[in-house]
């Protein structure tokens, strides 16, 4: 793909970045907002990580050591909420903000002011959520899935703050997603036809559609929880004609597409990085697009595989089992395509590629345990055990989080104009890779043996594995401080990066200077 982008020479009424705090508060610039999202996400990643450390410290030994059970419940709940809504989703939105306009040759996001609004709601929403931890009665303690009646009959009085915090997070996500879709549909440079779009853009287009489709359903779910708890309705109370299981149906109708919201952009990142370092075109571009779309569509009809043990009618159990297993087909297409891209490629192992390869292997592992969980009769054994915890941490940590790390390393030189410290990054990668497996792999074993999740104590036979898991957890947590160090050192300085940082890289973002100028593509490039 070649272009005639001579953006830097085009003069226009815009100037460089304004200075001071106002730059960040009032900004309409997609790069500023992208940086804000990424920084916020890093902060939340560390916050949620600190909570995970509390959980692992308590579980280091059997018996109750450090925290009381109610606080433990708050930690598991808020860890989940912070990581899902505060770390992973904003990180992907930050990457979308930074990269999508540059990748499609647009001057900015389509609705720049709304973009700023989407971001700035988030710090406020999380301030509310985290502040409730310090209030009388404590924060939410019903699990991030807030199942009724835990969140209605048995929750503390501060639940209303949780509900409205989730509401405004939802507003933020919906506005962010609308911005992404409109940008991609309306702002592509001439010649950037649909089947030339970089895969990161494609996957984000589909992700944004999922977000707009399901975030409002989450809003509906929290609203019903609110009225059940405070206004005497009985949506989730059989005594009034409702049904607690209905909560799970509504929640997971949101929740399952939500987990694909957290993995589709990761697919896009991996599909960008693997060809670069294999120095080959992506194998099966079109099939990647169709696979992503089918995964997204299927995500709407598999939600009840989270609910096999609720006593659904047999037809429901069977339908959701087969529909779920069907998802492994397009997902398999993706994995094979990545492997085929590397096949006979001229591979070099820079840090982004290391994370990408780790992603392919470990995400696939998480996919396999997902397949095991999809089998209804087997799920009766695995349900609500650490096997489930192992499964979703493999897809979310070694999946989503590793892809975000890969993306950060891949584009940091473009963002900052500096190369990062390779040695530190190597340390970060290897320590993370080893510790993450020490952390999550034994969870499969204790889970299969029946250790229940979300309980602050466990039977003695799980003690050894839990000690190992906790050690892995602390090591993984500490390793991430290296990542913070690499990022801040890279922002502060380093070997100047070339415009085309990686020699096999393709795409419009490599045709602008490093660091990327404050405004790029004010006049669209021609793509042919």
């Amino acid at each position, binding site marked *: 793909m070649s272009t005639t982008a001579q953006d830097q020479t085009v003069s226009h009424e*815009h100037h460089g970045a304004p200075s001071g705090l106002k730059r960040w508060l009032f900004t309409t610039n997609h790069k500023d907002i992208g940086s804000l999202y990424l920084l916020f996400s890093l902060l939340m990643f560390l916050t949620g990580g600190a909570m995970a450390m509390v959980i692992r410290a308590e579980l280091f030994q059997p018996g109750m050591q450090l925290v009381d059970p109610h606080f433990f419940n708050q930690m598991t709940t808020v860890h989940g909420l912070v990581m899902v809504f505060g770390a992973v989703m904003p990180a992907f939105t930050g990457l979308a903000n930074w990269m999508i306009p540059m990748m499609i040759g647009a001057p900015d996001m389509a609705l720049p002011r709304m973009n700023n609004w989407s971001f700035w709601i988030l710090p406020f929403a999380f301030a509310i959520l985290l502040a409730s931890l310090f209030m009388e009665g404590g924060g939410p303690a019903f699990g991030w899935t807030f199942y009724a009646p835990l969140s209605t009959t048995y929750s503390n*009085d501060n639940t*209303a703050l949780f509900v409205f915090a989730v*509401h405004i997070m939802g507003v933020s996500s919906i506005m962010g997603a*609308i911005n992404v879709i409109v940008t991609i549909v*309306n702002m592509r440079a001439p010649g950037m036809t649909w089947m030339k779009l970089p895969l990161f853009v494609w996957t984000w287009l589909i992700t944004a559609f999922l977000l707009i489709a399901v975030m*409002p359903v989450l809003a509906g779910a929290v609203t019903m929880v609110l009225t059940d708890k*405070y206004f005497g309705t009985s949506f989730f109370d059989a005594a009034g*004609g*409702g049904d607690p299981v209905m909560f799970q149906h509504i929640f997971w109708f949101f929740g399952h597409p939500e987990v694909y919201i957290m993995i589709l952009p990761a697919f896009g990142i991996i599909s960008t990085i693997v060809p670069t370092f294999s120095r080959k075109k992506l194998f099966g571009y079109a099939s990647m697009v169709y696979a992503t779309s089918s995964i997204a569509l299927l995500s709407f009809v598999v939600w009840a595989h989270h609910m096999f043990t609720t006593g659904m009618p047999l037809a429901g159990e069977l339908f959701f089992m087969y529909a779920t297993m069907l998802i492994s087909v397009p997902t398999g297409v993706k994995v094979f395509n990545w492997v085929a891209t590397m096949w006979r490629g001229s591979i070099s192992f820079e840090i982004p590629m290391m994370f990408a390869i780790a992603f392919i292997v470990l995400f696939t592992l998480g996919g396999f345990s997902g397949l095991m969980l999809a089998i209804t009769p087997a799920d009766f054994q695995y349900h609500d055990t650490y096997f489930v915890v192992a499964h979703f941490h493999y897809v979310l940590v070694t999946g989503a989080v590793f892809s975000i790390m890969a993306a950060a390393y891949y584009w940091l030189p473009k963002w900052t104009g500096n190369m990062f410290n390779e040695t530190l990054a190597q340390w970060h990668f290897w320590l993370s890779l080893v510790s993450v497996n020490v952390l999550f792999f034994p969870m499969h074993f204790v889970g299969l043996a029946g250790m229940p999740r979300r309980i602050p104590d466990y039977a003695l036979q799980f003690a050894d594995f839990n000690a190992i898991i906790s050690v892995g957890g602390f090591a993984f947590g500490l390793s991430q401080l290296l990542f913070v160090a690499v990022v801040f050192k890279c922002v502060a300085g380093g070997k100047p990066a070339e415009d085309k940082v990686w020699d096999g890289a393709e795409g419009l973002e490599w045709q602008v200077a490093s660091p990327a100028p404050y405004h790029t593509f004010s006049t669209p490039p021609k793509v042919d």
Partner: protein
Amino acid sequence: MDKSYQPYYVPEQSPWPIVGAVAMFFIAVGAGLTVMQLGKDASSGAWTLFAGIVILIGMVVGWFRHVIDESMSGLYSAQMDRSFRQGMGWFIFSEVMFFAAFFGALFYVRMFAVPWLGGSSNNAMTNEVLWPQFEALWPLLTTPDGTATQAMPWQGLPLINTIILLTSSVTLHFAHTAIEQNERLKLKVFLGATILLGFVFLGLQVEEYIHAYTELGLKLDSGIYGNTFFMLTGFHGMHVTLGALMLLVVWLRILKGHLDSNQHFAFQAAAWYWHFVDVVWLCLFVFVYVI
């Protein structure tokens, strides 16, 4: 490079979004505290909520005034106009999904939850052990724990309201053709009529609620029938209010001479929204009242 390309307008820095974020913060904290303070002797929540709403209104006025000035001074290109249109379309889709959550709850309750409590399918023991006297009927007038209420008939006010809202969609369509053909007087009359019908609808809705609460004993907390009835019609009513306010602002702009046959995104967005609340009402009328 295409010589005719008009640069996409990327606005300068703007204070309004952060004001909006602060407003959302106050609204979320205020609404949360208000709910938590229900029945207690405290009003800090209500004041916080009120402050949030005031800031939000200030934000909307300031932001929209700015956008209208930009639009009137010709900064917007056709591409910009498409961004706005697509943005509005997706916003309406998100609203559709919000209602889908509540319609989903209604359908689930009517098709599964209530019949199962009554012992259908393989749930004979559910009924026998929990509430053996419970009979599964819809509308659910007596809940399993014995709360009784009366159903809202669809004849009368709901039917009149349906006719009013459908009529308002027709008058809005006439206004739409009028703006496209630059018939300003016709536009003002039909748009004004639409807004009037909208407020009449809301007035009758209030009347219906009073009737439900005082005469039928049908309340928000009278079991799943009352829950779904008030949540669906209530959220619909809020959306009608918002739609009517949008149309009102557009009408005032038209009186000031804004919006012409070529450029009338504001009109179109409000009109789309109005047709959307109309369609939601039709679904409501069928599934909440009639069937």
